[in-house]
């Protein structure tokens, strides 16, 4: 039997926000979260009873994140004061938005595998079900993505690396 929609929000709200933050950064994640649950509320009565609700929501969130990202590229972000000099490592202390940028630059499958696994806490099997492909491929994509992230994220250095 399907749950009242409020239960769906209560159960999956955190996961969806994590996915949106991973795909967009903290700033724009709220918009994608709202759009995701609005679209889900509209479509919920038609969702088959056997569907995996979390996977369904994550799929919607991915789509909405892309929409928000496209809109954001057209709208320059208003700021109170302009930074004095450009920085290549983001703004320190703003919820690690610089990290999200690096996650964002990963190849599609790696980015999604990382997001779903480390943020949404989904198993590699569940990720494979969403992305298509084998469980091994999903596991590999997450591992490769993490490796790339460690190599390129300015603050991240492999353990024991010589400075």
């Amino acid at each position, binding site marked *: *039997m*399907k*749950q*009242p*929609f*409020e*239960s769906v*929000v209560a159960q999956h*709200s*955190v996961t969806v*926000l*994590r996915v949106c933050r*991973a795909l967009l950064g903290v700033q724009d994640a*709220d918009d994608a*979260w*709202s759009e995701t*649950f*609005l679209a889900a*509320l*509209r479509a*919920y*009565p038609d969702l088959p009873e056997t569907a995996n609700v979390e996977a369904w929501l994550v799929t919607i969130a991915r789509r909405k994140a892309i929409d928000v990202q496209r809109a954001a590229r057209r709208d320059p972000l208003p700021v109170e004061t302009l930074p004095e000099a450009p920085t290549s490592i983001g703004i320190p202390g703003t*919820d*690690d938005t610089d*990290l999200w940028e690096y*996650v964002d630059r990963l190849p599609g499958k790696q980015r999604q595998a*990382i997001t779903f696994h*480390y*943020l949404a806490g989904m198993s590699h099997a569940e990720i494979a079900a969403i992305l298509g492909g084998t469980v091994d491929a999903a596991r590999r994509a997450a591992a490769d993505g993490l490796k790339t*992230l*460690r190599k390129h*994220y300015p*603050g*991240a*250095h*492999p*353990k024991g*690396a010589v*400075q």
Partner: protein
Amino acid sequence: MSDVRNDDALTALSAPIDPETLARLHARLEIEAQAEGLVDVAYTTVDSPLGKLLLAATPKGLIRVAYAREDHDRVLENLAEKVSLRILRAPKRLDDAARELDEYFDRRRKVFDLALDLSLSRGFRLLVQKHLPEIGYGQTRSYREVAELVGNPNAVRAVGTACATNPLPVVVPCHRVLRADGSLGGYVGGLEAKTALLELEVAA
């Protein structure tokens, strides 16, 4: 230092999300979903002298008042099944109902002036529930008298069932229906609640 930063990547990815953020997002969803006409059933819970009450409304009006002993989760599941899955905790739509109930429990209100959605009841039960508000504040009727009131004097048991299945207790005053000998009969909120409501109305 580098080791710490290394783990920072994953720590940031799984940074905790505080309840305030979730509350703010939920409030925004309530407004936007309401604006798009997507909230088929809005609900909230309020405190009352009879414990927590669940209030639920469709765009037509108040559809459900439920005592805690009815199990609010089950009441919501039932609404999902019978009315719509598009149920959201959205207290705003229940503001009037909550205020009138407050006034009633404060003895400042004798008649409820709320739009009601009676679509959970059908047939004879609906007929009885429509007539119950004719029993005035502080008065009582027997099950038989109510059967006569709705023009079916033999349907005493069916009146009992109609009262027992009243989806809008307190607001639709099934607590004012007693056995012919003056004993309480049953009540969806429990006999203590029925006694409390009758005493509240007598004392006013």
